[in-house]
């Protein structure tokens, strides 16, 4: 289980717990449950897993708009 941090540079920071083999689509759904759907930078493909994108626990920040 990893925890991913997402930042929407307007001050909203979301920490989402997920598996590293969840796909981006799943992650987007989880984020949407917390904050609503947005557009993400960089633009991630929905069917690729977090592991493939090398998004690890607590690492850096994903930006969304």
């Amino acid at each position, binding site marked *: 289980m990893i925890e991913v941090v997402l930042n929407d540079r307007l001050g909203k920071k979301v920490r989402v*717990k997920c598996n590293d083999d969840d796909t981006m689509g799943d992650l987007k759904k*989880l984020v949407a*449950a917390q904050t609503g759907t947005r557009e993400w*930078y960089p633009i991630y493909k929905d069917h690729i897993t977090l592991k493939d994108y090398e998004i690890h626990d607590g690492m850096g920040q994903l930006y969304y*708009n």
Partner: protein
Amino acid sequence: MANRTDPAAKSIRGTNPQNLVEKILRSKIYQNTYWKEQCFGLTAETLVDKAMELDHLGGTYGGNRKPTPFMCLVMKMLQIQPEKEIVIEFIKNEDYKYVRVLGAFYLRLTGTDVDVYRYLEPLYNDYRKLRRKLADGQFTLTHVDEVIDELLTKDYSCDIALPRVKRRWNLESLGSLEPRRSALEEDFEEEEEKEDNDQPADELEDRAYEKDYYRGRDRDRDRDRDRDRERDRDRYRLREEKDYGREREGRERDRRDRDRDRGRRRSRSRSRSRSKDRKDYDGGDYRKRHARSSASPRRHGDGHEDDEPKKKKEKKEKKEKKDDGTDHPDPEIAEANKLRAALGLKPLKV
């Protein structure tokens, strides 16, 4: 320069026609590539060509609210202000549905109340499909008549605030409009006549309703009966009685009860056993309830373990624990798992 309204254009509703689109959206349109490249120096004729190339409608999309080409063309029309005849031609044309919708949108923004109703209502009969771009960038299916309905009844469409039009019955009472005749009205009248003439057909229908109603009532009775049974007795005895019940009652009802009770039994057993079989049944309760359960020894084995005193505890636990790995001691993780189960995702791997 390219963004100034034609000086010969009239003001609409007391303001520069381009002001019908609010400031932020207007700026977004002016900065848009489609606007800059394609909409420069468009006239009414060349605008038609651009409109024929449209393949979707929509407002703004994406994180930075990018306008669709549809929006840009609406803006262009507001800028050049084509004649009413031209707009009506847009609406009347049957070949290009997006041109039609574009004309309808423009008329809704700029036309008088009477005109709006008069020219948009015939479009209710157009059932063609349209592609609409949503705010998150995805496309959805809609139809021409749905869009027209939105234009006539809502205040807001495609990220533009629609100017107020008087209610239809206002205009009817003023005499400016006739009461609306739907295209389906003739069909309704036919239906009514048929109903008056065909009495037996109605009776048949009633009888069918009654049958369903009775069956429903029996179903409820069975359910209550079964629930009582399960609460008081042992699994074994329950199974026997179910067999007995099977002989007595109709087969359909049994299958239903069986599945329902199996679902109940299954979830109960699962909530007790932390064994591997939980992993096999991911994906929410609904799947369990509908699937035919197997007479596997494992399941019956689980049944053996349960005793009466535990049954009450089980019922309580069933409420607190979910079947999808959401009974984690850590409340945060349990909550996260609950959300994941709701979304159809597997539980977190800790």
